[in-house]
C-alpha cells in the first residue's frame, strides 16, 4: 500500500512539475516583485490554458491525497 502510494506520489510529482512548466509564465521576474513595474497583461486565458489548469488541478489533487496518505501510514505504523 505504502509503496503504491509512494510510486503514485513520484509519478504525480513529475507530472505536476512538467504541467506547471507548460503554463505560460506570468511572473514577470524580479523587477515587478517588490513594487516595481506596472505591467498589465490584458490577454485573456486561452482554451489551452483553461484545460491545462484543469489538468494541473486534477494531478495536484492526486498529489495531495498520496502525500497525506503516506504521512498517515507512517503515523499508524
Amino acid at each position, binding site marked *: 500500500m505504502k509503496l503504491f502510494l509512494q510510486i503514485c506520489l513520484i509519478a504525480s510529482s513529475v507530472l505536476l512539475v512538467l504541467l506547471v512548466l507548460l503554463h*505560460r*509564465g506570468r*511572473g514577470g521576474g*524580479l523587477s515587478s*516583485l517588490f513594487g516595481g513595474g506596472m505591467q498589465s497583461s490584458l490577454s485573456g*486565458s486561452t482554451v489551452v490554458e483553461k484545460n491545462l489548469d484543469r489538468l494541473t488541478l486534477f494531478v495536484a489533487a492526486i498529489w495531495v491525497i*498520496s*502525500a497525506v496518505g503516506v504521512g498517515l501510514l*507512517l*503515523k499508524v505504523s
Partner: protein
Amino acid sequence: MLSAFRSALATPDLRRKILFTLGILVLFRLGQTLPSPGVSYRNVQECIRLIEGSANQSVYSLINLLSGGALLQLSVFALGIMPYITASIIVQLLTVVIPRFEQLKKEGQSGQNKLTQYTRYLTVALAVLQSTGVVALAVRGQLLRNCDTTTYPIVPDSSVFNLVVIVITMTAGTAIIMWFGELITERGIGNGMSLLMFTSIAARLVPEGGNILRTQGGLVFAVVCVFGLAIITSVIFMEQGQRRVPVQYAKRMIGRRMYGGTSTYLPLKVNQSGVIPVIFASSLLYLPQLISQLAASPTGEPSTWKRLVDTYLVDQSSWVHISLYFLLIIFFAYFYVAITFNPDERADEMKKFGGFIPGIRPGRPTSEYLGFVLNRLTLPGSLYLGIIAILPNFFLDMTGQGQNQNFPFGGTAVLIMVGVGLDTVKQIESQLMQRNYEGFLR
C-alpha cells in the same frame, strides 16, 4: 477608509479577485503545515520546541523566516519561494554577463517571456538542488542543531528510495508555489510571488511576538511594538518618496489630430531597488557560514578558518558582520539600480517621442543628467536601506540577547512587508478608481 473597503467588496469583479487571492493564500498556508511524506511530524515538532527553548538559533534564520517556518518543519512547501527568487536573481545577473540574455531583455515582451520561461526552468533545477541539501542536512541532524537524531529521528526510515520520494515531493511543492504565484498575478490582485512572501513573513509575526512577550515580559513587548510602528512609518515615508524630473512633450500633428504638448514628470524613487539589495547581501553573507558547516568534520578541532568565520561573520552582533552587511547593501543598491535603470535608454526613448527635460538638450546631456540625479538620489536611499536592515542587530545588542535578523519587527521582514502591502493596496485602489470610487489613500 472602512467605506472604501466596503465598496471594494461591493464590486463583484473586485470581490471575486480578492476572494480568489485569499483562497490561494489559505491553500498556501495549509501546504506549509503539511509534513512531507516520510518525515515524522511528532519528532520534528519536538525538535523545534527544543530549539525555541534554547537561545541557539539555526543558520537558516532568514531563510526560515522567508519560508514562514515551513523549512524547519520539512513540510511539502518547505522551500517556499526561495528557489524562484534565487533563480530570478541569477537570470537578472546573467543579463549583464551573457550577450544573448541581454539581447532577449531588449527585445521587449516576447524576449521577456522567454527570460521568464528560463527563470522557471532554473527554479525547478534549483528546487531539486536545495531540497536535496535540506533533506541531507535533516538526516544528518544538522538542520535542527541541538536535537539528537537517535532519540528523535526526523526521517525514521532513511532508505534511499524514501529520501528520493521526499526530494521529489518538495520539488513538486515548489512548482505548485510558482503556479500559485502566477495564478494570483493573473487572476487575483497584486503580484503573486511577493504576496506569497508577505504571507509567510506575516505568519511568523504572531509566534515571534508571542515569544518575546513570554520570555521578556510585557514592558519589552510594548517597547518593541512602539519601535516596530515607528520603523514601519519611516519605511512607508521613504518608500513613497520620489524625485519628479519634469518632462515636456512637443506638440505634433498625426493625421488631423494633435498629439502631445503635455508636461509630465519622470518619477525616480528614492529607493529604486526595493528590498532586493538586502536579500542579495544577506544571502551572500550566509554563504561562508553554510560552507563551513557543510565542510565541518564530525569530530575533531574546528579549523582556524571556521573559527574566524564563526567569530566575525556568524555572530550577528560583531561589528565586522554589521559593517560588512551595511557595505554590501549599499553596493548592491547601486548595482541593482545600474542594472534596472539605464539612463541612455531612457534618454533615447524620450527623444524618440519628442520629449525633453526643460533646460537640458535631448540625447547625451539628458542621459548624463539622469545618471547624475539617480546617483545622488540612490545615496540616501541605500543608506536608509542599510540602516533599517541593521537596526535589529543594534537594539538587540542593547538588550543583550543573542538574537538576530529573525526578529520580525525590524530589518528585512518589515521592508518586504511594507513594500508588498503598499503595492497591493495601490493596485486595489487603481481598480477602484476605474469604477469611480474613492480609494484608500488620500
